[in-house]
């Protein structure tokens, strides 16, 4: 209990002095990361790279060209692709690398479909390629090398226009080679042969060519000087052995006319990315940051290398597919400074226009970048989804409320918390168990004294139609009495250290091994461990949470794995940001498999990468019970949504520290309107179940959670659409109002879908908020009072503790289930109420999506209902959006509320079979709200209501 735990925590602290303290100095700055420092020393200027136009090779799907660095004569291979859906892919690798460089697998859902890239014109210094419609051209300038994508007279994006393309070619280590060999090529080769004698013939040939390549042209090898940190780097007490030497890459992008860029989660920072001149670049390197600070560019738990640019003219995206440590520099500039050569033939240069310059720097791998050309926000989402896939469609229950704590102590505790919710009539779907539930932090097991009968506990929850999540972390206790460890050991599935032994590090269980999740066989084995007969005590209402999958290594450099650890043939350096994605993927696969492919999985992850949206939900990690953390949860989740990950939430109440009752209530109110809605608390904090703060606060929290449950049909439909299209569920205002500059930096309010605008109260002691209601000619209705407000105004809204300012867009129809029950499953067959909020034209439309709420049958067997609801000219009708699908639901329409209309003299319901019946109604003339009583039609049926 407390004493032993206290001692244990103390032990951990002592063991990893650098690891678990609030300290910025535990994490590298760019200056402390050798490759970043080297790269940053390169300043904008004339690029040493030259495109060798005579090496042009053109095929149906791509063109290739060689680039040469005139300083060191190293050649690169440039590949250009035109991809379906208005995207351009640019790949740059060494023409003949000393050994292969890492190309990120398993992130793209398939090889992207290409379209023909045709040469429009060519001269001695340039090449003009057609990207298809609308005069889109890709211009390759040879010397200095640069790429420009233009549309008519507009430059959309330029690559290497600031000359920051830098490619550290792989090289032989000087201290092992140059001292031993003569300077002549012949003897150098002899020496090389002896050094690489173990390699195959084929590779030797490659290497020979490689050497030749570097000595051709003027016949001189341009040996570059070694710089500090190229072959070894020490941070704090950790040394990175860097056996492969320097390998970093960099490329700059200029976005003329752009002042707003977003994305590249995860950072605890503003929605609109900041200019990083004079500060560190934004860092993407999955790290377990203890008590993270707000508003800085430090790396956090996850990384999605996707940047979205937006202006009133165009929305675009840059997807930098690289899983190594990455830094992103953002600076403002003025367009036109770097225009010259061929592109002047195309563009009108205005030196007044704003411009944003972005530079990406990664430690290893290749340059593989997707330029998503938009032009609308929705197009960029579609484009990105076509590359990395869409949000997985969660079971409905996962969208409901989750009750978590480190830790619910034992079965008795779980039972009493479960009862507490019923006693206080508060709905919840999931109770969560953190690390203490397992036997000595051996995941897949249960503490025999605290959880002796897990099935009994799970059955108890199942009887209430509720669920449980148990944590399964990827660090495995090194313990010969632990089956999981023994199997991994015998299958040789652990990540290796630089010397080839099993990598070991400290984490919760003490000394731990880290399974190599990059290995597909390992992942398949891991997935099989979730089978009911393998995971003893588990049941179908038990789901999984993957924490610490950055991976977190308490005694590792920056609390993570050593970069020279080995995943098969690749270094951890190459795959780092991908590790967490693989953990979640393997776990989600396991949940699917255990149900025989029937059930949709639900897995929460802390670490993530591009593509993680396919495997479940993400939360913003170990935040704190502070108002600033409540506020930042909005931009953090919005940024994730822009980068494809819609299922995002922050720990309600804050993980560290003890929230005041006011903060807790406000956090519940905000969290109820964010995609992933889970309360969580650190083990050292006092208990904070919703009923522990007095009856008034209990009532406020109950009401917030009930609002969530009533809106579940809307959330579910949005997730269905996110799954189909990749559109974020939680959206910045500018996504829906891309021409309204006033919305571009807003991050204290947001849209759910396009129809609900939420401005949660996030200030202590607030008596009012000012919400911006966007859209000229748009009208917005307060969802609680039906009060009508015009768009394109800042609205001052007085608030009390019970206020959650939410507005429904005029022109929308939202379906709710107003009969809130103790869990979402209990509401399965309940009737819907339609809220039709009319726009200034007196019309509205919306959707209703229904399926079995938990299986893949919607996809595999087309078993779902998808209705289009529209109201215009006093007629409300429900039309089938998916005629080839089939599903029968017991749900019906109990009520229709039409907001902002006029009083009819009659209302008639027309059924599909032609029968008609009169509907009773009430009209509130002060608010212009018409309530139609009990249409009673089945939710899946065709029907029409006519008002006269």
């Amino acid at each position, binding site marked *: *209990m*407390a*004493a*032993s735990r*206290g*001692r244990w*925590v*103390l032990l951990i602290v002592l063991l990893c002095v650098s690891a678990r303290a609030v300290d910025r100095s535990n994490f590298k700055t760019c200056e402390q990361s050798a490759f970043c420092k080297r790269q940053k020393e390169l300043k904008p200027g004339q690029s040493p790279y030259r495109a060798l136009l005579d090496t042009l090779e053109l095929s149906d799907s791509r063109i290739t060209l060689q680039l040469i660095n005139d300083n060191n004569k190293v050649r690169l291979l440039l590949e250009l692709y035109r991809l379906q859906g208005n995207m351009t892919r640019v790949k740059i690798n060494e023409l003949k690398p000393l050994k292969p460089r890492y190309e990120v697998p398993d992130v793209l859902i398939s090889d992207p479909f290409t379209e023909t890239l045709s040469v429009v014109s060519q001269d001695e210094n340039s090449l003009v390629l057609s990207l298809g419609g609308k005069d889109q051209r890709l211009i390759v300038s040879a010397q200095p090398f640069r790429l420009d994508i233009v549309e008519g007279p507009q430059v959309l994006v330029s690559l290497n226009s600031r000359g920051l393309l830098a490619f550290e070619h792989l090289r032989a280590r000087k201290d092992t080679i140059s001292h031993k060999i003569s300077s002549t090529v012949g003897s150098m080769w002899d020496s090389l042969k002896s050094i690489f004698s173990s390699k195959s013939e084929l590779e030797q040939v490659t290497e020979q060519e490689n050497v030749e390549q570097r000595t051709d042209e003027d016949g001189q090898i341009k040996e570059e000087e070694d710089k500090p940190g190229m072959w070894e780097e020490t941070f704090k007490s950790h040394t990175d052995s860097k056996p492969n030497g320097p390998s970093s890459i960099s490329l700059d992008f200029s976005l003329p006319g752009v002042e707003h860029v977003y994305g590249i989660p995860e950072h605890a920072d503003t929605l609109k990315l900041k200019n990083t001149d004079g500060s560190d670049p934004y860092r993407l390197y999955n790290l377990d940051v203890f008590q993270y600070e707000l508003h800085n560019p430090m790396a956090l738990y996850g990384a999605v290398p996707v940047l979205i640019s937006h202006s009133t003219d165009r929305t675009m995206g840059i997807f930098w597919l690289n899983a190594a440590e990455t830094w992103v520099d953002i600076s403002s500039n003025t367009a036109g400074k770097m225009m010259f050569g061929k592109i002047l033939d195309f563009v009108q240069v205005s030196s007044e226009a704003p411009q944003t310059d972005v530079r990406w720097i990664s430690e290893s791998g290749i340059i593989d970048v997707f330029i998503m050309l938009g032009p609308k926000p929705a197009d960029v989402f579609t484009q990105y989804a076509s590359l990395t896939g869409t949000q997985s469609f969660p079971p409905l229950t996962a969208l409901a409320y989750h009750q978590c704590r480190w830790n619910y*102590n034992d079965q*008795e*505790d779980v039972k009493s918390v479960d009862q507490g919710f019923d006693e206080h*009539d508060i709905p919840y779907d999931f109770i969560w168990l953190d690390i203490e539930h397992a036997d000595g932090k051996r995941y897949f097991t249960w503490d025999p*004294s605290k959880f002796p009968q897990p099935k009994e506990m799970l059955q108890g929850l199942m*009887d*209430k*139609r509720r669920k449980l999540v148990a944590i399964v972390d990827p660090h495995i206790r090194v313990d010969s009495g632990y089956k999981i460890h023994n199997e991994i050991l015998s299958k040789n599935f652990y990540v290796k250290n630089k010397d080839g032994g099993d990598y070991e590090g400290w984490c919760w269980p003490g000394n731990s091994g880290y399974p190599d999740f990059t290995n597909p066989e390992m992942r398949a084995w891991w997935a099989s461990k979730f089978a009911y007969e393998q995971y003893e005590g588990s049941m179908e209402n038990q789901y999984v949470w993957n924490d610490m999958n950055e991976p977190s290594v308490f005694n590792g450099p920056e609390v993570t794995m050593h970069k020279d650890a080995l995943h098969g043939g690749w270094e951890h350096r190459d795959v780092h940001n991908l590790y967490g994605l693989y953990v979640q993927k393997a776990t989600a696969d396991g949940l699917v498999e255990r149900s025989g492919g029937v059930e949709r999985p639900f897995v929460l992850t802390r670490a993530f990468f591009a593509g993680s949206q396919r495997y479940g939900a993400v939360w913003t990690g170990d935040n704190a019970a502070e108002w600033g953390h409540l506020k930042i949860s909005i931009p953090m989740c919005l940024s994730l949504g822009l980068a494809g990950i819609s299922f995002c939430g922050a720990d309600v109440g804050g993980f560290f520290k003890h929230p005041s009752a006011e903060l807790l209530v406000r956090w519940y109110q905000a969290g109820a309107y964010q995609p992933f809605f889970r309360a969580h608390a650190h*083990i*050292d*904090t*006092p*208990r904070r179940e919703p009923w522990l703060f007095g009856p008034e606060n209990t009532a406020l929290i109950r009401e917030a959670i*009930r609002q969530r449950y009533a809106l579940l049909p809307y959330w579910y439909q949005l997730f269905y659409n996110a799954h189909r299209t990749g559109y974020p569920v939680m959206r910045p205002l500018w996504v829906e109002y891309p021409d309204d500059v006033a919305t571009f930096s807003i991050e204290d309010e947001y849209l759910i879908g396009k129809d609900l605008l939420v401005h949660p109260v996030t200030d202590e002691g607030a008596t009012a908020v000012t919400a911006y209601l966007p859209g000229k000619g748009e009208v917005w209705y307060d969802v609680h009072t039906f009060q009508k407000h015009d768009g394109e105004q800042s609205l001052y809204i007085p608030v009390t503790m019970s206020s959650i300012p939410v507005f429904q867009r005029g022109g929308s129809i939202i379906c709710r289930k*107003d*009969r*809130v*029950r*103790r869990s979402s*499953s*209990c*509401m399965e067959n*309940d*009737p819907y109420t339609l809220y039709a909020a009319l726009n200034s034209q007196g019309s509205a439309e919306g959707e209703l999506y229904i399926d079995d709420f938990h299986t893949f049958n919607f996809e595999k067997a087309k078993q779902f209902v998808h209705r289009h609801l529209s109201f215009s000219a006093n007629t409300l009708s429900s039309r089938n959006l998916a005629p080839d699908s089939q599903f029968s639901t*017991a749900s*019906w329409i*109990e*009520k229709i509320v039409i907001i902002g209309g006029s009083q009819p003299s009659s209302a008639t319901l027309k059924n599909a079979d032609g029968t008609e019946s009169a509907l009773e109604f009430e009209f509130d003339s002060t608010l212009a709200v018409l309530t139609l*009583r*009990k249409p*009673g039609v*089945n939710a899946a049926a065709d029907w029409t209501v006519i008002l006269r």
Partner: protein
Amino acid sequence: MTCVHLLLTLVFAVSLGTPVEIQRPRGVPLTKKQFYVENKPFTCLDGSRAIPFDRVNDDYCDCKDGSDEPGTAACPNGSFHCTNAGYRPMFIPSSRINDGICDCCDTTDEYNSGAKCENTCKELGRKEREVLQKMAEITKEGFLLKQHLIEEAKKGQQEKKSKVTDMQGNKKQLDEKVEVLRTVKETAEQPEKEAKERHLKAWEEQKAAIRLEKDKAKMAEAFLFLTDDEDGLLSLCISVSVSELQSHAELDADADGTLTETEAQGLMGGAEQVDTSTFESVWPNIKDKYHSESQPEEPAPVETPPDEVKEPVVVNDSEPYPEDDISEEEDEDDEDEDDYHEDDDKAPPTIKAPEKSHEDEEAMPPYDADTQALIDAAQKARDDFEEAEKALREMDDQIRNIEKELSFDFGPDAEFTYLYSQCYELTTSEYIYRLCPFNRISQKPKYGGSETNLGTWGSWSGPENNKYLLMKYEHGTGCWQGPNRSTTVKLTCGKETVVTSTSEPSRCEYLMEFTTPAVCQEPANTDLSPHDHEEL
């Protein structure tokens, strides 16, 4: 779902053996039956509106107060009544109607959900009766025990009170006795003192003569020593300077550890330098303290109390005490925050036992017989006085202890008195918990390790109507990055006085369950049959 949900329930309840058939809308308790009259418009119970009777339980919420839908889940604020014949009737929120979960033991809440519920009312009723029976027995016996406890406590209290009174009387006598003995002692000590002084004086005089000779020799040696340094001008300038004296910190007058220039000058009669002739006048100032550098450090004189030994007069490089002493003290200061260092070896401060002084080589001659007799008499008076004083102190302590005990709130009838100065243990898989009521609670690992204080007695903290149901123990050992440990003890009626369970619902906040007859209430009545009647 357009069908009308006006389903009437037929309730067969058993009362006094006569079956009675009652008709009312589903979910309506008997007490409200009169408001639901078939075929008459129904007025919402809040009076807000009237609706046709066929809209009662038609699965659409018409009344703001939910009263038109007692038997469906249509109203968010409705409630459903289940009769639960054989057990106890209850209301459930109407959101639990047809939600697939069996809430009413008579299954009436799940009439259209497909949930397979079994009527468990009889079983529950039986079990409840059993439990109540058992509880009643325990309460009854417990209450009897409590009466004994109260009696004993009252008796005990009375005894203690009279004991205190007695003791206070005795104390007065003792007080007087002490005063008398003090006078006797002081009277005996006066002649003793005078005789001793006489004896001492005689001896001093005898000794002075011998010492004078020795002193002269020593002065000559000291003068040479003090001047033999730095300049090497021994033969030319035989003098002692202020700075030379300053190197002898043992001459420090104010015992601040250093010999200041002013102090040194004082010793030298205000002169900066002295020569052999004037040194004779300086010598008496310094000779008592002067240490010859050629000799080993003189041990502290016998009569120096140990406290002063810590501040050695001589500045010396070799610390006389091990560093441990200091850290030891610090450890004790923050013992509360850190319970892991208990095992540290507590090295006792190594105070050097003072050796016998060389000065006493010529021991004082024994007292003469008269003097010795006076001394013996005085000693006896002293001993008698001290013994009496000690007895008085002990009696004071006893009185204080009893008064302290009497000052505790042992309940309205002193029924908790018996717990005082007792301890009760509970052994779990990991720990041994120890509750010493009105004192403290502790936790000790079963397999070795130091004890953790889970709180010392704070107060009764039960609800207003009976604060004696909870005890609060506070200010226990601090938690790492957390609050000080505290424990709430929940008291329930039982025949035995036992700790039945402990838990830590929140970090460092413990809950202990404790049974005692002292909280058993007088059994209200003997009728154990549950609430069958409420319904009819």
